[in-house]
């Protein structure tokens, strides 16, 4: 059967096509196209990801061995690098400490020093002593002052051939003659069981302020002079007391002592013969 072409039909179709084209070019069909394409794009995405997952799954057995091996190698390398970082950090910390100790020694060229490492603490919590790894074989003698990079730590109390015991200035039995700066007042620093440092025997008429620096005075000959101990944190004066007292914030952290310097050319003065039996 032969169909007859209708010219009006053709013109109508062309006009419709041109109209749609113009509407599309004018942007009027965008919402319609978006609505129509959205489910298609969603379906396309879903299909693509599933296909990709399937492809990965099918290819995985071939790669997984090499991936695991690579992962193990990287893990081992990472662990090695972490260990190296820790070791390097420790070395940097030690170098900084040694540099600070060297600065301290250079600032006082008149003294000769022997560096020593802290190897233990006194097992009795009532006593504040540390043990160092240098003894009489290294020239260490009883009574020698011991300092850290910040300031005074204590003095050698007992010596063996290869080790020595250092009495810290925080020990309750310790007394150190001190001078406060800038007030230029003398006093006696005593330790305590709590580790607090207190300056006693400060004259009542002396003006002492929080923030004053505390140095060894050298009086008594047990310690050399002008070694920093700490800073006055507060001053107390009781109405009936004969002297003022001051609390001191030590400059040395006594809980983290690692490397110390023993002043080996200092000869402590032994005042025992000058003290009468009644005073002992």
């Amino acid at each position: 059967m032969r169909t007859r072409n209708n010219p009006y039909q053709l013109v109508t179709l062309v006009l419709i096509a041109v109209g749609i084209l113009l509407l599309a070019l004018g942007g009027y069909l965008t919402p319609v196209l978006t609505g129509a394409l959205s489910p298609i794009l969603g379906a396309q995405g879903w299909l693509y990801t599933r296909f990709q997952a399937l492809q990965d799954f099918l290819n995985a057995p071939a790669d997984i061995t090499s991936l695991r091996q690579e992962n193990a190698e990287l893990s081992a390398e990472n662990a090695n690098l972490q260990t190296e970082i820790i070791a390097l950090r420790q070395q940097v910390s030690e170098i900084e400490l040694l540099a600070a100790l060297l600065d301290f020694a250079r600032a006082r060229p008149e003294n000769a020093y022997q560096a020593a490492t802290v190897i233990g603490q006194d097992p009795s919590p009532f006593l504040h002593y540390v043990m160092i790894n240098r003894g009489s074989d290294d020239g260490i003698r009883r009574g020698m002052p011991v300092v850290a990079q910040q300031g005074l730590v204590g003095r050698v109390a007992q010596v063996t051939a290869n080790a020595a015991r250092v009495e810290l200035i925080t020990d309750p039995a310790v007394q150190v003659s001190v001078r406060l700066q800038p007030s230029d007042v003398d006093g006696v620093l005593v330790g305590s069981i709590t580790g607090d440092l207190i300056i006693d025997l400060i004259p009542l008429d002396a003006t002492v302020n929080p923030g004053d620096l505390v140095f060894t005075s050298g009086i008594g000959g047990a310690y050399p002079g002008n070694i920093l101990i700490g800073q006055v944190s507060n001053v107390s004066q009781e109405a009936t007391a004969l002297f003022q007292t001051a609390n001191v914030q030590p400059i040395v952290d006594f809980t983290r002592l690692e490397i110390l310097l023993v002043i080996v050319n200092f000869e402590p003065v032994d005042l025992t013969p000058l003290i009468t039996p009644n005073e002992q």
Partner: protein
Amino acid sequence: MRIIVGFLLLLIAGLLQVTLMMRVTLLQGHADLVLIVLMVWLLQEGNKPDWRWGLAAGIMVGWASALPDWVLWIGYAAAAGLCQLLHQRIWQVTLLTLITAALLGTLIIHLLTIAYLFVSANPIGLVDGLNFVTLPTMLLNLILVLPVYALLGELTKVLTPTEEFA
């Protein structure tokens, strides 16, 4: 065998005490690992507590301490003697007995130390000593008894395997 293991345990505890345990502090108190190991070991089943074990521990700690040796010898020997007494009087040692023994042992050694410091030229306040040192140390020792008890209990089982009857 038990004697050798006991000495080794005390030696290890002594080394840990002067290096590691002194950094574990509560106020001014430190856990006394040597005392705890001594008491827990002596009160383990199969061991015979003897004050001479305490003397050995005292000699070892006295080497590292600035306190006069005899103070520690007497203190640790008394603590071991306490274990001996408990072993004779109590038919079975429980964890509670161990805790009590550890606390009493700590108290004995600390009171002896305070008494020595009091009569020496370096007196410390009894109240300060008890508050800042003894009580925190007792608390730390109390905490330490539990893992040491578990550890030495396992060690004793390994050393003396017993037959189990079905």
